[in-house]
């Protein structure tokens, strides 16, 4: 990746849920470009459309109108199978509530994704990379929240995605473990060159991004580059 290519390009993206009197416009014509290797935070209050935007970029939701191009794929018009193929190869998700499978160990949770997308199993290496080398065979119930989220990050990385999409990754974590996870995401971004998009309502987290995109009422209300982002360990909330 050169850092000049566009990882994400949205033009006039709209998303409407429901019809008639109960219709809700979650996104109202969003134009956004994100370069490969950027660490972008989508910031906004509840209902601002940030998660909808993330889901559309990730191919788990579709725009009602507009152009969505991610990692070179034009997502508009792709059917469910093609979108699944896109998710398999291009993007990785990290969710607020980890969503680990309780009957699989940490290593197996990661390996399962590798199996599903038919990639070689690097689960042990990935877990060591996220600092869980000594917790490989622990089941989720035996891991702390931060550890579970780190497993979730490793799981997302198992596919070697170009774009990592994180929805409130620290929302269920305390400060210390939240910092650990953010630090890990920064590491993935800096050392591996992956594009990372983090959705949060926590303004503090925005200070560690390369760029902060603010959403309000389904539209972009601000887009600012951070010249000197902080390290995750310096964040306080």
């Amino acid at each position, binding site marked *: 990746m050169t850092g000049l290519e566009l990882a994400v390009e949205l033009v006039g993206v709209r998303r409407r849920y429901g019809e008639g009197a109960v219709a809700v416009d979650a996104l109202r014509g969003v134009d956004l470009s994100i370069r490969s290797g950027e660490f972008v935070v989508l910031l906004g209050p509840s209902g601002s459309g940030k998660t909808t935007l993330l889901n559309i970029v990730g191919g788990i939701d579709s725009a009602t109108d507009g152009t969505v191009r991610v990692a070179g794929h034009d997502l508009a018009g792709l059917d469910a199978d093609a979108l699944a193929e896109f998710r398999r190869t291009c993007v990785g998700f990290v969710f607020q509530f980890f969503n680990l499978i309780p009957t699989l160990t940490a290593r197996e949770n990661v390996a*399962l*994704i590798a*199996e599903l997308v038919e990639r070689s199993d690097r689960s042990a290496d990935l877990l060591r990379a996220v600092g869980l080398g000594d917790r490989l065979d622990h089941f989720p119930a035996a891991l702390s929240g931060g550890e579970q989220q780190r497993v979730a990050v490793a799981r*997302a990385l198992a596919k070697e995605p170009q774009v990592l999409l994180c929805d409130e990754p620290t929302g269920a974590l305390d400060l210390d473990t939240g910092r650990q996870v953010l630090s890990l995401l920064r590491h993935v971004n800096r050392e591996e060159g992956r594009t990372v998009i983090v959705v949060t309502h926590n303004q503090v987290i925005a200070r560690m991004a390369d760029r902060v995109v603010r959403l309000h009422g389904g539209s972009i209300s601000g887009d600012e580059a951070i010249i000197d982002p902080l390290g995750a360990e310096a964040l306080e909330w």
Partner: protein
Amino acid sequence: MSLLARKLVRDTRRQWVQFAAVALTLALGVAVFGAAYDSYDNLKSSYAHIYDRLRFADVTVTGGDTAAIAAGVRGLAGGPAVETRVQADIPFRVRRGGEVHTLLGRVVGQPPAPRVDALLIQRGRGLDPARPAGVVIERHMADHFHLAVGDTVEVFAATWRTLTVEGIAVSPEYLWPARDRQDLLTSPDDFGVVFADEGLVADLAGSSPAHQVVVRAPRGADVAAFERQVHTIAAANDAADVMTQAEQPSNAALQQDVAGFGQLAVLFPVLFLVAAALAAYVLLGRLVRTQRGQIGMLRANGYPRRRLLRHYLAYGAIAGVAGSIAGAVGGLGLALWLTSTYTSSLGIPLAVAHFHPLTPVIGVVVGTVAGALAAFGPARTASRVAPAEAMRGVVPLGVAHRSVVERVPGLRGLPVRTRLALRNLGRSPRRAVSTGAGVALAAVLVLSSLGMLDTVTLVMNDQFHHIQRQDAQLYLASPADANLQAAVRAVPGVAAEEPAIEAPVVISNGGRRYQTALTGFAPNTAMHRFDAALPDGGLLLGDALGSILHVGAGQTVDVAVDGNPPAPVRVAGFVHEPIGSLAYTTIAHAQQLAGGNALPSLLVRYDAHADRTAVRTALVDLPGVVAFRDVRGSEETVRQLLGLFYAIVGVMLLFGSILAVVVLFNTLSVNLSERTVELATLRAAGGRVATLARMMTGENLLLVAAAIPAGLVAGWLTGRWLMSSFNSDLYHFTLRLRPTTPLLLVAALLAIALLMHIPSRRSIRRLDVARVVRERAL
């Protein structure tokens, strides 16, 4: 409507398919209960009604001083109804179109208005002293040979004599046209009954009539005590046999059938209700888990445990009430259908079909209680939820661990998807056990039904192909001579022939007596399979007689043929044969015991591709042949009579399959809804719908496969119990399965689990991935 009641209605509506599946299972159980129980009751009532109307004999005494016996019985308290009569088994000839049918029929003497064993005239008229040569034909014979009033029947009494049909009637003694207890499965081709004036029967019977006294107990009498009194009088007057109504061949056969309904009325509903309860338990367990947050909120707001318990019990009761009302209504209809199908297939007139209000009430109560009981466990769990814990919204996980299979060396490197499927079996052990039990119950229902079919089919095959090896039996006017044997062998299509004789006998040991048929075969007979050589001078007995007569091999019994004094004979051994409890010896010994009462015959085996009709026509035309019995015809008759049995078992098979589908469908639904977040996460990660659906299907297959061995064992034991309950001196059934039957069952259950792949795939495809992964909304 209270808000909780509204919640109940909406929750039920939201998962209506799963609730409908539970209700359907309960409905099937209640319907089977209602249908089987009411049919059982209707059939019992129908028989009781017709027996009462036609004054069916409570006791039939054969032989001895019948005048003295009749006088003695008439003197008993209450003034019992008594008739004396004569009957005889003699050859009949019926001409139908250009064909002549020869059979060994029965003529029964009858007064014009008998006080016992009256006839129900269906066409024509009854016996009339003014027309002494006129006869009344029993309905089965008339139907089989298409005989109408005014037609003729020939009977053999030294010469062939022609009798005119005056009427066609139903007799309580021949509702099931059985020749005797040892010959219950008689083909109408081989046996028919003609009622005639006493004098005519005495004339036709010649030297070997059976003199009988038929007796009906006074109304309201203690029938068992009355039977004992008649028995005492009969014994004192040298009667050869005393037969109670329960032992009467037609009644015994019908009562055995009715008893089968009684068993179905208990066993199958229980299976369905248990399965429905298991399905409801799985469904409601899941409901409670997903509503832990709501329950916690209600508890935190001071909602009493009891109200919560009642609330969740109501979910089970709703499915129970809906299912059992539908089942009760369906059961009423099914009972009417079964009763009318059964009675019309057997040609039983005066069928009684009552409305039994208690049956649907019991069905609804039991169905509702089953639903509520199934809900009790989840409801109690709900009422015991600690508010603080529940409000966190996290369902406490059991301790996750590796499956047993993975601990086997060499299987540790299984794909993660396979490991996931294996571990999910133990993820919710109660649910896995409930589902496994449901599958096992379906297997029990299907295997026991198939087992009954297999057993009957294999037993028929054994009886009519391996034990009885003849294709036909020719009854002769006099013992076979070399000329007749040569003439039989010369008929194209005849492969072998062999003489045999038959005689009705009473075998006794001390105070125990049993009426049966004695057959004498050639010492090295090729027409009947015996495991040991036929004893010369001894008897081989059907093995039920060992316990009936309390006799063992090497001991002596008394053998009496009507008109001859009892002779002591050694029991050489026992034979295990599925139908009847007969006695066998050599032809010479049988002749010695029976004297002039022996009925001579020739057993004939055909070539494999013989034209059976042509062979029969040629054989009955031979001089000296007075009656013909087609063994294959008997087999065919049995198969036709079993038509209703096959229909009932077919319904059970259908219900069993529905049960399997319902149980698996509910488990799958619960599995899917419980793992919505996981599946959505995997979908978000790019997991293909087909791959994820295969994972779920793999789990179902594993669950079904794990339950199958238990189902097979339980099904086999149930089938064995069911078959053994038919055992008596008339039938000896041991459960037998074709090797393919369990394999087919296993394949069918696995196929159902595989079929569940379709809804599974559809549900996974329809997952709202974005919403689920974000909100953890289930």
